[in-house]
């Protein structure tokens, strides 16, 4: 098996180089620690939100008093009149206010009984503060969904509602940070092949009957091992920093792993297009930086103009963030993620095929 022989060689060349190994494993560690230092402080972000309860049922009250109040970064203020809340929002005393419309309690209890019913919350917020509103919408969405899906007896009065999910800043940012780490696999992957090109070792291997696919997969197999190690470090790091893992760890890992394959594939494409590190480096940044912006790992892609959102959705990373948040925060299962997983896997297959075609072209100039 030439693929295996090449992978073993690449792996030896990597793990015997303390500097390279230190970078590959140390980078995710440092990255997570830095991330932890930045976001772990309690007062990193807190929002004041107003609540106008027009439903006024035990359920809507429980939602306000238990679910919303349970989120540590939220300060919940009750209002009777939306006009006053709006004034406070304008004055900057509130970040947002939500109106719980009549029928909310009914909708929630229907959900609890297994019937699907749309739950409507009206949220008014200050558009100018993009970061805050972005997170607020996400939080509201998450907390409402978990509230509505909790299975408890309908006799609310007897049993106080217990909200398990506690949304923190780490929960929101964690998947994004991991995806950014996976994006850095692009330059890492490209470098491993380009270094062989630059030193002429690849040219020497090219005088053997090794096929293009064997080269690409030989390099990738070594990188897959690196990617697995990095993802594990990222996930443990994020978990240690307080990121909740509500859903299946394995499913979250699968999502990140497929994304890692896409990064490795892009790295192979870049490496096939360049002859030296000097060429590969800028090409890598050209790929990974815009992709980071479009992925939603720094800010959600919902705020992008629609044409950029289309571009963003054409690449794996936005899907990864959506899917991994769904698993980690909301505990969504495999059946709900099928589309995203298929997209990621398909993307990986296509990008590897492109890599192999480009490599074949570069074999003989």
């Amino acid at each position, binding site marked *: 098996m030439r693929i295996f*022989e090449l992978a073993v060689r690449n792996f030896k*060349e990597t793990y015997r*180089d303390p500097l390279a190994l230190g970078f590959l494993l140390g980078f995710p560690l440092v990255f997570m620690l830095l991330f932890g230092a930045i976001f772990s402080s309690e007062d990193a972000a807190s929002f004041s939100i107003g609540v106008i309860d027009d439903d006024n049922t035990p359920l809507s009250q429980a939602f306000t008093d238990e679910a919303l109040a349970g989120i540590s970064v939220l300060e919940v203020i009750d209002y009777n009149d939306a006009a006053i809340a709006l004034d406070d929002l304008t004055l900057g005393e509130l970040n947002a206010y939500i109106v719980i419309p009549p029928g909310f309690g009914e909708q929630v209890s229907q959900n609890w009984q297994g019937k699907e019913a749309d739950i409507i919350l009206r949220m008014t917020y200050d558009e100018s503060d993009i970061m805050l509103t972005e997170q607020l919408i996400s939080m509201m969405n998450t907390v409402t969904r978990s509230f509505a899906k909790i299975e408890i007896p309908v006799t609310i009065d007897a049993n106080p509602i217990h909200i398990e999910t506690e949304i923190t800043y780490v929960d929101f940012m964690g998947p994004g940070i991991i995806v950014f780490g996976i994006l850095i696999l692009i330059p890492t992957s490209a470098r491993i092949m380009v270094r062989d090109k630059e*030193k002429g070792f690849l040219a020497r291997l*090219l*005088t053997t*009957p*090794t096929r293009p696919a064997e080269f690409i997969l030989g390099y990738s197999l070594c990188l897959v091992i690196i990617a697995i190690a990095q993802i594990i470090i990222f996930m443990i790091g994020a978990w240690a920093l307080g990121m909740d893992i509500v859903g299946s760890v394995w499913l979250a890992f699968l999502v990140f792993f497929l994304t890692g394959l896409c990064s490795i594939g892009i790295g192979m494409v870049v490496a096939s297009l360049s002859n030296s590190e000097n060429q590969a480096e800028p090409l890598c940044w050209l790929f990974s930086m815009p992709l980071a912006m479009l992925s939603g790992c720094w800010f959600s892609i919902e705020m992008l103009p629609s044409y950029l959102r289309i571009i963003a959705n054409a690449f794996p990373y936005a899907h990864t963030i959506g899917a991994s948040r769904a698993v980690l925060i909301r505990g969504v299962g495999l059946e709900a993620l099928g589309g995203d997983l298929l997209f990621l896997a398909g993307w990986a297959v296509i990008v590897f095929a492109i890599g192999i075609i480009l490599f074949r072209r570069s*074999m003989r*100039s």
Partner: protein
Amino acid sequence: MSTDAIQIENLTRIFGNLVAVDGIDLSIRQGELFALLGPNGAGKTTTIKMLCCLLKPTGGTASVGGYDINRQSYNIKEIIGVSPQETTLSERLNAREHLNLFGRIHGVDPAELKARSDMLLETMGLAERAKDQVRKYSGGMMRRLSIIIALVHDPEVLFLDEPTLGLDPQARRVIWEYIARFKGKKTILLTTHYLEEADYLSDRVGIMDEGKIVALGTSFELKTSMLDTHTIIVYAWNLTQKVVEAMESNYAGVKVTDGTMEITDKQLDFKEVVDRLHSAGAVIRSAHIKEPTLDDVFIQITGKELRE
């Protein structure tokens, strides 16, 4: 199909404005050691790269072991061994791991690979350091390893691109002796810009300059047939004006410096020259025919020095 191991027809490669290889024709017999001799930039490496299917020819074609370089590159890669000009090794692998990697890529049987690796490491004097990472090797050791990597799968045709470039004379001689062992057993195409190397090793030499093969033949043929003048060098006492005049009246070129006389003409008879000197009164200490070198041939053909 011919018995030629390598057959090159009108092979051309153009890089932009530069004609690196300019329509060369060449046949190399099975088991022949052929040296392409020329200065840097003559097109030697480009030729080898085309034969190894690393570069596409702009025009013309060639076959290696009967396979066409344009259409049957993988067949060719199965039967060739290549030691590239730059010592290209994988820094953090040791010598044996290199041999294992290339042997396994070529699908060599494991037992055979082990035996052959042992033999190759032993003959190249690398057995003791076989477990050291190659980044700790000297230049000579890297070269030797580079050559045996090309041999580990027992190829039919061996390409050695400047196998001794940058080595000291002693290390170079070790490699020459090693390459010489394969003479007659494998077809070897070697490039060099060292005259002694081509002279010492090759069955035939092709002199390459500016993309063309400008002279072709055995080293002896080139030296004798290409040169139309001969020189005798005489060390003698008593090289008086009378002696010089006597010689000048008989030979086309006579040059005297510090008791040394150089006599040059199209035809020179050693005994006749010595007799003439004697009778003119010179006392000869020693006299010899100056051996023509490939350098002379090269200068004569191209008008340039071979060495940079």
